[in-house]
């Protein structure tokens, strides 16, 4: 952003400076020309007298004085082109001759070049000596010393350049300040959007900068607060709802427990109890989920480090061995090695909850005869693979949606909350859950934390 600004500033400043520089050089040149015209006029008058009287001694003396005073060489030629008088080292060469020829046609050769810092030290001018009747009597060639004028022009240009530089700096500073003022709310908005996307607490977006951005900032703040409120309400709703369900559930449970069991009612009561079990289980899982979500929002609000700490070093076998018998009872085999040993950044209780859910899912969906493999890798990454055979692509896409269960297993007792809980627990610990098709055929659930 700075470079184009610099280029534009430079162009603007140069566009102003070049004419100024030119004007300085031209003014100085015409000033010099005016001075030298006066001096040349003096010489021309004396030359006219001298040439008329054919006595050049006085002229010669004047020229020498002139040369000593001004340091400028002078050459006076008579009408035949011979040297009548001279002072200084002005030699007749082609250039001088051309000037003389032009001047002898009674045209003064006042073509002083514009004085530039890199111009020459001298410039020759030729003035015709005109007697009565407009007849050229001779030519005065004056070698004008440009050095003083050149120094003046150089100094003038330096001054202008310095002023230009200052102008450029001022321009840059002003535009930087201005862009910063314009961009500050944009940056704040950018940070705020990132915060909202990550569900971090939102510092209020300062309403600064141009009016359009101010109103945008205000609108964004309102929207962010509303989004956060909506999320908070949604989280709170799960907790409140499951909490509220507990009282009626407790009442029903007590009354069902106390029901007299006659032989003909036994089946009905058992069915009610089974549904009650399921309801209780779902409410329990909803509370676990609400709790995990609460931890996620606490983590996002507070310091990144979950104060519940991390589990000690453990291997795949440590994690999964307690499920071995349960899996074996259903005809599944468990593969979990005792090495390597890693320490994932979440509490052991959460880790057990997660592995419970994943193993339960494998048990439920992979079916008898399948193999469940739990692996732990540095990263840390924990993987649970199964060799189930009927994992469909659309199942994979919808997995982890709350209350969703693979259609053909609705008869089973799952709540459809397991993977949602795993997902929230992982998020609460700064990790993530990834679901993919396992190279072994069934589901691969990967628990991944970025190395701290």
């Amino acid at each position, binding site marked *: 952003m700075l470079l184009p600004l610099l280029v534009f500033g430079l162009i603007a400043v140069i566009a102003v400076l070049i004419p100024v520089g030119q004007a300085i050089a031209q003014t100085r040149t015409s000033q010099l020309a005016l001075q030298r015209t006066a001096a040349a006029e003096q010489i021309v008058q004396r030359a006219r007298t001298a040439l008329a009287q054919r006595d050049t001694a006085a002229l010669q003396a004047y020229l020498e004085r002139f040369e000593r005073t001004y340091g400028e060489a002078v050459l006076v030629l008579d009408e035949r082109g011979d040297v009548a008088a001279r002072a200084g080292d002005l030699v007749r060469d082609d250039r001088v001759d051309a000037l003389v020829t032009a001047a002898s046609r009674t045209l003064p050769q006042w073509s002083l070049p514009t004085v530039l810092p890199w111009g020459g030290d001298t410039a020759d001018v030729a003035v015709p000596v005109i007697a009565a009747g407009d007849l050229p009597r001779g030519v005065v060639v004056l070698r004008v010393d440009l050095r003083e004028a050149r120094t003046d022009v150089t100094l003038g240009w330096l001054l202008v350049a310095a002023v230009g530089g200052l102008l450029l700096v001022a321009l840059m500073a002003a535009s930087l300040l201005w862009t910063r003022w314009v961009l500050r709310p944009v940056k704040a908005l950018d940070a705020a959007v990132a915060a909202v996307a990550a569900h971090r607490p939102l510092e209020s977006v300062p309403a600064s900068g141009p009016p359009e951005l101010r109103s945008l900032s205000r609108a964004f703040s309102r929207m962010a607060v509303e989004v956060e409120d909506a999320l908070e309400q949604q989280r709170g709703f799960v907790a409140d709802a499951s*909490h509220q369900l*507990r*009282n*009626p*559930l*407790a*009442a*029903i*449970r*007590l*009354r069902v*427990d*106390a029901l007299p069991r006659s032989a003909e009612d036994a089946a009905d009561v058992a069915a009610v109890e089974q549904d009650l079990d399921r309801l*209780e289980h779902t409410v329990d899982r909803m*509370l676990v989920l609400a*709790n995990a979500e609460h931890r996620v929002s606490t983590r996002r609000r507070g310091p990144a480090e979950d104060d519940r700490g991390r589990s000690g070093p453990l291997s795949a076998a440590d994690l999964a061995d307690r499920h071995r018998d349960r899996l074996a009872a259903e005809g599944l085999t468990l593969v979990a090695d005792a090495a390597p040993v890693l320490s994932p950044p979440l509490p052991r209780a959460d880790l057990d909850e997660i592995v419970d859910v994943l193993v339960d899912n494998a048990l439920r969906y992979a079916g008898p005869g399948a193999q469940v493999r739990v692996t732990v890798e540095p990263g840390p990454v924990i993987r649970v693979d199964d060799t189930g055979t009927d994992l469909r692509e659309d199942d994979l896409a919808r997995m982890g949606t709350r209350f969703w269960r693979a259609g053909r297993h609705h008869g089973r007792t799952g709540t459809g909350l397991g993977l949602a809980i795993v997902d929230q627990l992982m998020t609460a610990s700064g990790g993530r859950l990834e679901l993919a098709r396992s190279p072994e055929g069934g589901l691969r659930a990967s628990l991944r934390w970025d190395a701290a």
Partner: protein
Amino acid sequence: MRVLVAEDDASVAAALTSVLTRAGHTCARVARGSDLLLRHRDADVVLLDLGLEDMDGLDALTQLRAVSEVPVIVVTARGDERSTVRALRLGADDYLVKPVRLHELLARLGAVVRRYARPHQAERIVVGDLAVDVVARTVVSAGESVTLTPTEFGLLVALARRSGQIASRQQVLDEVWGDAYAASSRSFDVHLAQVRQKLPGVRITTVRGFGYRLEDDS
């Protein structure tokens, strides 16, 4: 067993009352913490919900524990560790999360009551040369019989049972007036002054900020 159910949810209270009655217990139900503090003396065990109509169950528990050691089982929907620990620390004897299975509830009721030995209420208290017969309601101080009003008598018994120890104002109020947190403080002071006047041989020390102590000089 007399069970006092402190529960704000009517259907849970009704279910608890119903099943406990069917299991052979006597049930009473209160929905407010203040009622719990008035009626706990009639109960062998209290089932306390943490959400009551007028106050938090944990506050009710704190106030109850200031005056009584009746067994309390917290039965609540709050299943988090923090509430459990706080309730147990504040003096709950057990903590059950709703929904509760009936047989577990009955078993826990039995266990809690079994552990709780109701303090033996002596029928005759002797402190130094003061002798109080609780059953006959007579007071003998330094060999002379003294006549006390029922309230004064109750106050003396409450202090004499804890002779040498501090009896808090709430404990005495609870035992004598049946309400530890009612505004009967002024009347308490009047009756205490009466007792002190009628029994000059008995030293009742006021321990500021804690309560009262009937000095045991023997």
